[in-house]
């Protein structure tokens, strides 16, 4: 009987080796291990064995069953693997073909510049204030200490709605509005549109954008203005940027300064971009004029402060190498998608 079992195992092995499909393997299993299978048939003869022989043959029979089972499972796995391999081979794609584009839109490059600047200043504890585009002569000029005969007030420079109302020519009017509304300490920036009576060309636009900054507190110094703007410029243009503070004149600050940054294209050696000077004019700034503080209802003996302002259109043009300001307002999709 033991011999029969061994023979059965050999036969099964041969059949399993030859099998090349799941179906054949399944029928092989049924043939040998099924309820009516050959192994069962053989085991029916167990009754004729002696009690001593029975456990021995039983053990062999179990071994044979398990061996066949394992062989069939292995063979099945092999067939599945082969099938998967064939499938994978048939599914090769040309991964160099183009991806399916999910179209993204862009914020306007000027908005992107504003976002970048806002983030830096928010990080430095500034809040964002807003003011009207249509502004009074008082806030736009008078309150900012602009001389009554200053040429910037001319109709050739400023758009007027009537004698007392203009399109703001700068974001600085927000300074006095902020002083009136808030109590020191004040730390604000104010981004926005401005207007000047300029015929559009590559470097002029009747509408442009500025970002204004204002800090008011006790004991603010020119040194604080320098320190604050240095932190800002390094955050904006990089840690290695150098800054130059030059004296300048603005009616609403005294002392006043213009601030240059080392050219961010050549690092300050001089190139086409900075016209050989190594410097890029970045912003205007200064200590808030006592008259402006008074106009904002703040006592200049008790409080001081500084203000700064920068032209965003020009900065954005410099940053991206845009050579015509009009492109910003043409809004050609092919232009806007570049940023």
């Amino acid at each position, binding site marked *: 009987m033991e011999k029969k079992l061994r023979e059965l195992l050999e036969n099964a092995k041969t059949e399993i080796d030859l099998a090349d499909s799941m179906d054949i393997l399944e029928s092989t299993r049924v043939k040998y291990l099924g309820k009516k299978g050959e192994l069962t048939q053989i085991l029916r003869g167990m009754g004729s064995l002696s009690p001593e022989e029975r456990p021995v043959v039983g053990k062999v029979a179990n071994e044979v069953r398990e061996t066949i089972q394992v062989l069939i499972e292995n063979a099945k796995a092999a067939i599945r693997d082969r099938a998967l391999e064939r499938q994978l081979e048939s599914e090769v794609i040309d991964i160099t073909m183009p991806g399916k584009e999910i179209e993204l839109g862009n*914020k306007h490059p000027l908005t992107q510049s504003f976002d970048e600047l806002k983030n830096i200043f928010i990080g430095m504890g500034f809040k964002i204030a807003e003011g009207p585009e*249509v502004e009074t002569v008082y806030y736009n000029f008078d309150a900012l200490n602009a001389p009554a005969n200053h040429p910037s007030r001319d109709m050739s420079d400023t758009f007027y709605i009537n004698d007392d109302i203009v399109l703001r020519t700068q974001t600085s009017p927000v300074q006095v509005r902020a002083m009136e509304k808030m109590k020191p300490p004040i730390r604000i920036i104010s981004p926005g549109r401005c207007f000047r009576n300029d015929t559009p060309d590559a470097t002029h636009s009747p*509408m442009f954008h500025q970002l204004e900054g204002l800090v008011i507190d006790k004991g603010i110094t020119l*040194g604080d203005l320098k*320190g604050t703007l240095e932190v800002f410029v390094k955050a904006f243009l990089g840690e290695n940027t150098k800054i130059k503070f030059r*004296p300048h004149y603005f009616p609403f600050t005294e002392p006043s300064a213009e601030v240059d940054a080392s050219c961010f294209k050549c690092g300050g050696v001089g190139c086409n971009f900075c016209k050989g000077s190594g410097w890029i004019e970045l912003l205007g700034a200064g200590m808030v004029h006592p008259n402006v503080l008074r106009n904002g209802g703040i006592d200049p003996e008790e409080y001081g402060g500084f203000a700064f302002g920068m032209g965003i259109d020009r900065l954005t043009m410099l940053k991206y190498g845009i050579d015509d300001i009009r492109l910003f307002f043409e*809004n050609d999709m*092919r232009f806007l998608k570049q940023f």
Partner: protein
Amino acid sequence: MLVPVKWLKEYVDIDIDTKELADKMTMSGSNVEAIEEVGKDIEGVVIGKILEINTHPNADKLVIVKVDIGERQLQIVTGADNINVGDYVPVAVDGAKLPGNVKIKKGKLRGEVSEGMLCSQDELNISKSVIPVEQRDGIWILEKPYPLGKNLLEVIELEDEVIEFEITSNRPDCLSMIGMAREVAATINSKLKYPEIVVKESEKNSSDEIKVVIEDTKGCKRYIARVIEDVKIEPSPQWMQRRLANAGVRPINNIVDITNYVMLEYGQPLHAFDADYIEGNTIVVKAGKSGEVFKTLDGVNRNIKDNMTMICDINKPLAIGGVMGGEESEVTSKTKKIVLESAYFDPESIRLTSKQLGLRTEASSRFEKGLDVNATKIAADRACQLIEELGAGKVLKDAVDVNLPQKKEEHINIRPDRINKILGLELTYEEIGDILNKLEIEVKYNSDNTIDVIVPSHRVDLENEADFAEEVARIYGYDRIPSTMATTDIVAGAKTNAQNIEDMTKDTLTAMGLNEILTYSFVSPKGLDKIRISENSIKRNYVKLLNPLGDETSVMRTTLIPNLLEVMTRNFNRKVESFKAFELGRIFIPKVDSTDQLPHELLNLVIGIYGDGDFFTLKGIIEGLFKKLGIKGHTYEVEKHHPTFHPGRCGNIIYEDHIIGTLGEIHPKVMENYDITTRAYCAELDFELILQLTRLDSTYVPLPKYPAISRDFAIVLKDDILVKEIEDIIVANGGDLLEEYKLFDYYKGDQIPEGHKSIAYALTYRHRERTLKDEEVNAVHEKIINGIQTKLGASLRE
């Protein structure tokens, strides 16, 4: 302000090179815009005298010239037609080098030997704008004999460096060589050397020849007249011509050049009258007569107003004071006697006059900024000195000087402690005083720890402590002020809620593939015609500009749609196939009945698409945005009467009784107005309302634990029944079990009767606390379908 360095050095010792000087000046407040080198790259150009001019045998337009250059004579072929025998000219000899890498070689021109070139000023790199008119298109004719054969550069000072300074509007005193020399002296710690003015005068008294009366005491505070006889008009010497040219002023003749020279030197404009035209030997400064017409020396008739200050004789006007002289009394080559004017005109008055006339001259632009009233006399004397020295005329004795009482010298009290506090410095009183002294500001130290300062008359800009703080800071050096951080209490920086929502809106729309556009706040009133807004619409109540650039930008926008459509047109014309864009910007609505108040500025959001997408793409964008902003409970209502939109494809977005906005397909007639030949879709939304409706405070709802049951149905119903009507019934009957409904199929065509459509919905039912039974769902679902069938006359599709 162009400052030739050699000229500058006449008034101040400079022992550093020009580049270093420029850097230092920039740091003390006189920003250097450029340094130009003039007269460079010239080699082998000598003085020559023209001996003969002969015709060229082979060319009509050329002549053969014989030139004496001292040791020899040259034959030169030239095309010049402004030369005469006896003229002294610059000659570039064989081997000479000219600016622009030009090398001169002996050669033949049309068969005739040419041993060099006669030079024009242009060829020697002198800017066309300062070449004397008669020599602009020809050879440089030197004004007098120079030693023949001498190198041009040795006899005429051509080489110099010219610094271009940016002068801020508060510093008119810097618009002069002496003004700049003062700045240089203070900046590099050098000494200022004023010109020594000694006028050789004749015996005759000026006052016997001319009288001055100031009637317009508001317009003119001081008037000085000096008389010069035996005037000989001729070119001024080369040294003066070169300095003027380098400073950007074209040489004309000795008298004009001297007045310009002194103006550049001291900042004081001068004017010379031909004395023979002055009737009654009297100058009367008086207000103009309105209606009077006066011809200025540029040949233009000017309409005079009574606020203008006129310089007249006893019968007629001679000049518009401080602006421009008259044609008649202008100095000409025949002038024998002149009256030289040096005056102080009121800045305000000059500004107004110049504005009214639309005439801004070098003189007016200086007077209107405010001049040094003490320079009036010095400048007159200086000009007379030069006239006498250059042999241009005989100067009569003394000046006629009518000097009205001036403002007294200003004493200002400043607190050094306060200045230190503003600057973040700890300078001593003496250090501060020394710096101010360098700027010719006199100081007096007081016992109460303050300083009294006396401002020199040329500094019209110094008024208060802050001004002096700046003077101290800029001379001390901005770069030496230590950088510090304001030690204020830390406040968190932040955007306002509205600013956050605006940013979120832009982020969401760009994530959905839209590009942000920015367009002008001012627009053409025709825009509303183009989008077919009715004549009496309140949208036509604009904020109008008094002085727009043109009609195109003459009113503040009351809607963003026309700008959007213009951007669409531009893109469409440029063959951009697919367009998706938005603008979040302000519209301007005048306050009712009060033009003296600022208008309302309201944020609007406009969205536009063409090419890829349709009405429902647009609606999907809006729904996506609203979802992000947490806006719920709004509905869409059919709008058939908005003139901008397709009457069958337009709707209003409603929230309670507010209209959030309108969306739709642009009306074909509007499209025609903009020349766009495709379909386009647009929505304009009231962003102020969106800000109010936005709810960003979302709370967590636990994920469902029990399974959902889905049921679909398809119905056929009449075309004109809105999907909204179906959905109202679904919602009304769905009760708590209905979790979601979704339209998944819309069909018209075969198997559907004419005038009908097939709509299919997928409904999802769920109970949050237990597994639903089929029977429960069936009951609700049937109720919904029954409702739709009975109320809308729909039939269920099996």
